C-alpha cells in the first residue's frame, strides 16, 4: 500500500488534536501496567489465565483483525468498487467466524491446547507441527512489520513526522504494554481500541453522509459517476472478482472468498483463535467469534461507505476514478485520509488520528502476542529447551516480545525500501494459509487420517496454490485470471489438492492409536467434553448455537437489502 507523496494529505493538527492523541497513549500504557499486576504464570501471560468474559474476547477478536490493512484497504476497495466490498465482511468473514465458534472451537478449547500449532502437533505429530508453527511465526513478524510501516507512513503523510520517529515511538508503546501485561494487556487494549476506532469512524461517516445528502444523495452521486449503478449493488460483483461472467463471479465469491479463503484465515489463524482461547469457559470460547460477528457485520458501514463518499466528494479522488484509476497524485488508498482532511475540524481530527493509530497498534500487538506464544510454547519449549519450570517460559515470553518488536522494526525498514518484495512475501505466506483449513477439518472429523498425510497434505496444497499463482496473469499469464479471481482459484486448488493428497496418503499409511486422539477427533471424543458442565443453565444469549443462528439470519438479510 503506497500513500500519496508530498503535502496532499497534510493535516493542520493543533494542540487539541495532539492532546487527544496523547491521552490515548497514556491509557494504552496504563492498561499495560494494570494488566501486569495480574500476571503470575505463563498461562496468565500467554492466555490471560483463560479468564476473560466473552464480550471482551469477542471485541478483541474483531479488533485484532481491524488493523491497517483492514481499515485503509477496505475503504480503498470501497472507493474503487463500492458495495461489492461488503463481501469481504458478509461473505468472507461472518460465515467462517460462526463456523469457528460452533464447530471448531470445542476442539481447540476442549483439548486445552495453548496454540493452534499445538493442536496440529497433538493430532499429527511434529512434521505438520513444524510446517505450521514456523510459517506462522515468520508470517507474524512480517505482518507486524508491515503494520508498523503503514502506521509510520500515515503519520508521516498526515503530520509530517519523519518515518523513523513514528516507527520507533509506536513500536516502543506496543512493546511496553505487551511485554508488561502479556495477552491480557493486548486484549484489553484491543477492546479499548475498538471503541476509539468506532468513535473516530462513525462521526466521519455520518458527517460525510450528511454532506452528500444522506444515503439517497450518495446513491445519486455514485450513479452519476464513472461506474454507473454497478457500485451500488453488492452482487454479482464482477469488478471485484475479476470474472467476466456474472455466474462465475458469484460462484467465485461464494466458494473462493466465502469458503476456502475465509475459512482458512478465520478458523486456523492463531492471532484470532488465541483471543477465544483466553476466555473463561467453553461456552465463552465458542461465543467469542460469534459475539464478534455482530459488530463485524456493521463495520463495513463505517469503513466501506466513507470510501465510497470520498470517491464522489473529494475532488482529486473523483478525478482519479473518472480516469479509470490512473494519473493524478492521489490513490484509492488515500480515500479515508482525504475525507478526514476535507470534513473534520480540529478536535474531531485528533480523535480520528487516534483512531487510526489505535487500529495500526491493535493489529501489530495482535501479531506480536500471537508470535511470542507460538515461539515460546511451540518452538522453544518443544524443540530447544524442554521441561524447565513455568517461570522460565514466562521470562522467555518477555524476551521474545522484545526480540519480535525489534525484528518488526527491521521488517518495517525493509518494507520502506522494497515495497514489492513485501507484497510478494505476503502473497507467499497467504499460500501457507490456504490448505490449513482442509487439513484441520479433515483431521477433526476423520480418525483414519495419518500423521504423514498431515504434513504431506499441507505441503502439496501449498505447492498447488503457488503453481496456480505462477501460472496466473500476475506472473506468467498462462491462465487468464489475475488479482482477486486468481487468489480465489489458487485457494480453491490448495484446498482440493490438500484433501485429495491427505485421503490418498492416509489410506496408504498407518493411522495413530485411536486412544491418543481423544479430544482431537469428533468420533473419539465424549460429547460432554465439548460443552460446559451445565449447558441447560445458559440463557439463550449465552447459547453459542442460538446466537450463531441469529447472526446468520441477520447477515442474510443484509445481503438481500444491499443486493
Amino acid at each position, binding site marked *: 500500500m503506497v500513500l500519496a507523496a508530498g503535502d496532499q494529505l497534510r493535516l493542520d493538527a493543533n494542540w487539541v488534536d495532539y492532546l487527544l492523541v496523547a491521552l490515548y497513549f497514556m491509557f494504552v500504557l496504563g492498561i499495560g501496567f494494570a494488566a501486569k499486576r495480574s500476571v503470575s*504464570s505463563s498461562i496468565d501471560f500467554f492466555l490471560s489465565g483463560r479468564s476473560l468474559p466473552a464480550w471482551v474476547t469477542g471485541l478483541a477478536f474483531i479488533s485484532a483483525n481491524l488493523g491497517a490493512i483492514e481499515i485503509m484497504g477496505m475503504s480503498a476497495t470501497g472507493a474503487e468498487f463500492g458495495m461489492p466490498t461488503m463481501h469481504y465482511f458478509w461473505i468472507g468473514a461472518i460465515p467462517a467466524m460462526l463456523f469457528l465458534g460452533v464447530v471448531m472451537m470445542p476442539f481447540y478449547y476442549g483439548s486445552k491446547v495453548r496454540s493452534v500449532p499445538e493442536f496440529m502437533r497433538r493430532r499429527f505429530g511434529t512434521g505438520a507441527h513444524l510446517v505450521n508453527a514456523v510459517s506462522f511465526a515468520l508470517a507474524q513478524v512480517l505482518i507486524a512489520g508491515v503494520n508498523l510501516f503503514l502506521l509510520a507512513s500515515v503519520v508521516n503523510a498526515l503530520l509530517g513526522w519523519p518515518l523513523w520517529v513514528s516507527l520507533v515511538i509506536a513500536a516502543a508503546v506496543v512493546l511496553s504494554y505487551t511485554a508488561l501485561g502479556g495477552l491480557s494487556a493486548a486484549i484489553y487494549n484491543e477492546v479499548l481500541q475498538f471503541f476509539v476506532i468506532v468513535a473516530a469512524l462513525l462521526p466521519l461517516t455520518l458527517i460525510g453522509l450528511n454532506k452528500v445528502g444522506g444515503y439517497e444523495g450518495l446513491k445519486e452521486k455514485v450513479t452519476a459517476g464513472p461506474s454507473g449503478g454497478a457500485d451500488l449493488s453488492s452482487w454479482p460483483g464482477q469488478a471485484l472478482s475479476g470474472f467476466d461472467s456474472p455466474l462465475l463471479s458469484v460462484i467465485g465469491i461464494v466458494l473462493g472468498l466465502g469458503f476456502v479463503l475465509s475459512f482458512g484465515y478465520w478458523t486456523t489463524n492463531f492471532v484470532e483463535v488465541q483471543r477465544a482461547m483466553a476466555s473463561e469457559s467453553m461456552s465463552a470460547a465458542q461465543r467469542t467469534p460469534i459475539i464478534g460477528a455482530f459488530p463485524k457485520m456493521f463495520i463495513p458501514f463505517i469503513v466501506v461507505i466513507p470510501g465510497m463518499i470520498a470517491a464522489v466528494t473529494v475532488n482529486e479522488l473523483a478525478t482519479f476514478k473518472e480516469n479509470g484509476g490512473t494519473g493524478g497524485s492521489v490513490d484509492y488508498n488515500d480515500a479515508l485520509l482525504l475525507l478526514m482532511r476535507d470534513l*473534520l475540524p480540529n478536535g474531531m481530527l485528533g480523535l480520528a488520528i487516534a483512531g487510526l493509530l489505535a487500529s495500526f497498534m491493535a493489529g501489530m500487538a495482535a501479531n506480536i502476542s500471537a508470535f511470542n506464544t507460538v515461539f515460546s510454547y511451540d518452538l522453544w519449549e518443544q524443540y530447544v529447551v524442554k521441561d524447565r519450570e513455568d517461570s522460565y517460559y514466562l521470562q522467555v515470553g518477555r524476551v521474545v516480545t522484545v526480540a519480535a518488536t525489534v525484528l518488526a522494526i527491521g521488517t518495517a525498514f525493509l518494507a520502506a525500501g522494497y515495497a514489492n518484495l513485501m507484497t510478494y512475501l505476503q502473497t507467499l505466506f497467504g499460500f501457507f494459509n490456504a490448505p490449513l483449513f482442509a487439513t484441520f477439518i479433515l483431521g477433526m472429523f476423520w480418525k483414519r487420517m495419518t500423521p504423514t498425510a498431515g504434513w504431506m497434505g499441507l505441503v502439496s496444497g501449498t505447492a498447488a496454490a503457488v503453481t496456480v499463482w505462477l501460472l496466473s496473469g500476475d506472473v506468467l499469464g498462462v491462465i487468464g485470471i489475475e488479482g482477486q479471481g486468481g487468489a480465489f482459484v489458487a485457494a480453491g486448488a490448495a484446498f482440493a489438492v490438500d484433501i485429495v493428497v491427505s485421503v490418498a496418503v492416509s489410506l496408504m499409511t498407518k493411522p495413530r492409536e485411536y486412544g491418543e486422539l481423544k479430544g482431537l477427533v469428533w468420533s473419539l471424543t465424549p460429547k460432554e467434553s465439548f460443552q460446559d458442565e451445565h449447558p441447560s443453565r445458559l440463557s439463550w444469549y449465552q447459547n453459542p448455537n442460538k446466537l450463531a443462528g441469529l447472526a446468520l439470519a441477520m447477515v442474510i438479510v443484509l445481503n438481500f437489502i444491499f443486493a
Partner: protein
Amino acid sequence: MSKHDTTAGRSPHRAGAFDIRTFIAMLIGLYGLVLVVTGLVSTSAADLEKAGGVNVNLWTGIGLLVVAALFQGWAMLRPLVVPEDFDGREDDQHGAG
C-alpha cells in the same frame, strides 16, 4: 472491583481482575469533554462550512459523553466478581459476562 479472600495455599489468579469498562468510560468521557468544550469555544464559520453546517465537535462530544455514562453505569450496576477456582465456569457470576 470486589474480590473474595483468596483460599489458602493457592496463588491468586487475577488475570481478569481489573475492569476494562471503567477504562473505556474514562477515556471516552475525557474525549467527550474535550470535544464539547472545543465545539463550544472554537468553532469557526469555516469549520461549520467544512462539515455541511454541523458542529461536529459538539455533537460527537455529546455522543461520547453518553457512551461513557453507559459504560460507567454498566460497571457500577454489575461489578466484576472474580471466581475463586481457576477454571471458573459459572458465567452468571460475572457482571461482564
